[in-house]
């Protein structure tokens, strides 16, 4: 099943955390897919390759957690985060970037994204701690 917002996966009904991965880089999406699949309690609900796709996917797939790359063609992660926050304040948005977090941090309003994490640090441990820290009170 596909949605205009991106590649769609069945929404888990067992209370697992639905994750939307947004990045134009296939390599990262593949790696993220593996990490999420290998992390109990988390389920990949969809993927998007741009900010615009992310907005549509967030509407249709209602993910709990959105991993959003900062640098993408078209609408970048910073603007998408602001819009997502406005549209779905209940969804947890985490910005990921190859830049140093402090460089990104200056450009993001504090409430738009829960966290900014270096891309290469992404892993099961980070996913779990992110959900533990922000999951109960997203935004």
């Amino acid at each position, binding site marked *: 099943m596909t949605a205009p917002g991106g590649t769609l996966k069945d929404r888990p009904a067992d209370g697992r955390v639905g994750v939307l991965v947004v990045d134009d*880089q296939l390599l*990262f999406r593949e790696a993220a897919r593996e*990490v999420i699949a290998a992390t109990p309690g988390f389920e990949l609900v969809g993927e998007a390759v741009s900010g615009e796709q992310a907005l549509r996917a967030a509407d249709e797939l209602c993910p709990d957690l959105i991993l959003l790359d900062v*640098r993408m063609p078209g609408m970048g992660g910073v603007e998408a985060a602001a819009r997502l926050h406005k549209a779905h304040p209940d969804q947890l948005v985490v910005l990921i970037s*190859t830049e140093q977090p402090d460089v990104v941090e200056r450009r993001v309003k504090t409430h738009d994204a829960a966290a900014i994490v270096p891309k*290469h640090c992404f892993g*099961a441990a980070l996913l779990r701690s992110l959900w533990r820290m922000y999951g109960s009170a997203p935004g």
Partner: protein
Amino acid sequence: MADIAETTSTRLRPRTSTGTAVALTGALVTTAALWFVAANAADEDRALSMVTRGLAIALPIGLGAFRLNRNPGDRFAKLLVAAGLVFSLTSLAEADGAVPYSIGRALVWVVEPVVVYLLLAFPTGRITTAVERRLVWAVVLLAGLLYLPTALIEEGFPTPNPWASCGEQCPHNALALGSAPEVMDVVRPLREVLSVLLFGAVVVVLWRRTRRVRPMLQHALVPVVAIALGRVVALAAYDVLRATDGQSDATGVIGWLYLFSLPAITVCFAIGLVNQRVFAAGALERLALELGPHANAANLRLAMAEQLDDPELRVVYWLPGDPGRWIDETGWPVKPPQQENGQVVTKVNDGGQPVAAVVHDAALAQDPKFVEAASVYALATLENERLIGRLHGSLRELAQSRARLVAVADEERRRIERDLHDGAQQRLVALRIKLELIAERLQELSPHDAAALRELEDVVETTIEQVRSFARGIYPALLAERGLDEALRALARDCPLPTAVYTEDVERYSHEIEATVYFTVAEALQNATKHARGVTAATIHVRGGERLEFDVHDDGEGFAPETAFTGVGLVNFRDRLEAVGGEASVRSTPNYGTTVSGSIPLEVGT
């Protein structure tokens, strides 16, 4: 320009030795005439007669030779030479022998038509108007009907006569066939009155022409009118005095004056021609001033028309090609320039090839050198302007190509940075994530292997950081995405030197401008960090507005101003700024640090 300067008018033939040959002939003829006068003239008048005749012969031939030397086709010069030769024959009137004396006396009557023709043909050598032509014919008829034939019916020529120093004791008329004193009593006063009237008419015609012609010719004609008037007055006075008292001193003096008027005419021709050249020089000078350093084809035509006093003057240009064609100053094709409707053509050639042609009033053609000089000068100015235009064009192209080089270099930097970001960085990131994934799986099964993998993760992480830093150095992603303000702040944060950034009205600009300012500031900071001594802090100021201005100041020891712009970095800095039309400066004061400043004009839309 050398080619233009060498240009010659095709109307002029190459300089020949005609002038020299004429001058030599003139010298021989004058010497022979003087010898003849010296041998024959009456003692008391010998010296005066020699001087008068010598000048009357030598001056016109000399002036003619001088002008022929400049222009072998000069018709007036040829007339002058011919007149000099005719005048030389009147020396026979000094002969003691009746036959040469009679021939000499008869030839004196030919002098006057020649003088009239010369006066009216000055300075072109041509009789142009019908009135002038009729006048010449009238004088010729007068000489042919009332003077020359009387040689056959008079026993003696009228005496005294300024052309013969024999006074009242002259040889008899060897040409006389008979005597008709009753006819002569009528003819003599009639022809004298007619002569004065006709010469007076010549003066009037010349005077009217002087008022009609262009200033340049006016300057030439005035002395000629003056001498013609003086001569007719002298002639009238002489006739009256001779009729009343032929022996008086006054008659003798006026006679000599009349004779002297002959060489004086040549002197006046010379003065007129000099006047004309002085006027031409003035006109050229005014032309030069009027054209100034930046002439174009339109104001060139106007300036030439005004200074050459020919409102109809046109300049047409030869457009080389296959086939080439003539165009006017607006680039419109025109028919080939040709002589018509009182206009003549002075062509300007460059190395045998036509460049342009000036179509002007035929009156100007009497001084082709002047028209040629004016044309060559004007075209040289135009050529200069064209060359300057071409130079400006080249400089503009150079600046544009420099800007293009900078733009291409910036684009290349951005491409490399993107490739690094999308390629190596992403692979390393994926590698790091997958290593962590495997390490996590192995954690329980084989903690030792997991630890080894995590060590590898550290290596990958270091590599990621290095690639990122390298990519940012090549072209900071932040600059492309967020602009100067943020990119410079990030630059300042990364700088080992404490650096403050102040910005004012800084917006987004073209890639070229943003990259120029960013890399210039980066380079200045790097210089301050690496090379300047005693630096503890730096500040970056950037101001937007009509120009984007920036300076980078450090508090180091500074350096002597003369060493400014010697380092490769500083030269690069200036080159980079100039490529986007900006300016650069470096101020350094010992103990007060160094300030690198740049200013870039901002056009709407950058």
